[in-house]
């Protein structure tokens, strides 16, 4: 049972929205709250909840900045976040390989 790829999945990361946040933050280096909300099609409250989970897990850092007079929130992936994202993608590929192999 422990050898199954699904056992290697992290509950914090293995969730559509949180995986999306990590993907975008990794690719973008840093990403603004509004970009995440728009591209993940979430409400501000929902996104904040997911960001809170990722921040408490040490996978992202959240910083405040200003663009003119507008306050903006920037999200950056931590090294632990990068490692967690990489591990999740590897596990997903393994799982797909196993499922496709079983189906074939």
């Amino acid at each position, binding site marked *: 049972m422990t050898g199954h790829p*699904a*056992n290697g*999945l*992290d*509950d914090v990361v*293995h969730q*559509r929205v949180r*995986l*999306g946040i990590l*993907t*975008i933050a*990794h*690719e*973008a*280096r*840093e*990403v*603004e*709250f*509004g*970009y995440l909300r728009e*591209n993940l099609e979430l409400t501000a409250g929902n996104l904040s909840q997911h960001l809170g989970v990722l921040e408490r897990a040490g996978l992202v850092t959240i910083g405040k900045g200003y*663009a003119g007079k507008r306050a*903006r929130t920037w999200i950056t992936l931590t090294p632990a976040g990068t490692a967690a994202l990489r591990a999740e*993608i590897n596990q*997903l*590929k393994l*799982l*797909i390989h196993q*499922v496709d192999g079983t*189906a074939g």
Partner: protein
Amino acid sequence: MTTYPAGADQEPHQLLADHRRLARQVRAAQRVTWFPLLVLAAVTFAAVPVYGLGGFVRTCRDQPGGGRVCAVYSSAALVYWPIALVLAYVAIAGFYLRRARARGVGTRVFPYVGVGIALAVVAGGALTWFVTHPPVGGYDLVGLHLAAGQGAWLFQLFSPGAAIGLALLVLALVERSWALFLLAVGYVVLAFVPLYDLGWVIARPSPWASLPRLVIGGSVLLLAGLLFAARQRAWRRDAA
């Protein structure tokens, strides 16, 4: 441990597909490849009057067996290229940063800008050295002896065109763009093609001898910039 509900075996496929789609969207938001290409095209075209109307530096050295070997180059161009390229890269960095901030993402342009500025400075210094040290019997560099005829190859290696092309290779890597990679390789190759092979020759000592290379190089950058602008606009429309 994560468990899967029965019949949810498509979920990993969907998650991976989402992962790839979101990554593509971010890259589309970050890319403004057309801007550096158009700026570098403008810098290249602006060099035409610098070569044509500026003065020339002529350095001659005596050959051991008799006779002299001379190097002639536009003195204004030696000053123009490092300054123009450094200013161009600063403008490119500023534009990328502004665009990225406006779109709500970070930027990956800084390695390109750093390499571009370093190449501009190194190429400018090396070009000045080669112009003021015409080959007498060849060059001895880092343990290699290069015959006098190979000086032209070295001269092209440190030309502004090669510096622009090599830096574009870095931009292609950071933007993960095959199209830009092929363009950059082509541009570097173009920098090494002798002028007479380009099929348009204005013989020295005309001050306009560099015109064909500048016009051809600038036109390649201009055309590529326009094509990238059209393509990236379509990408962003599709990704939205």
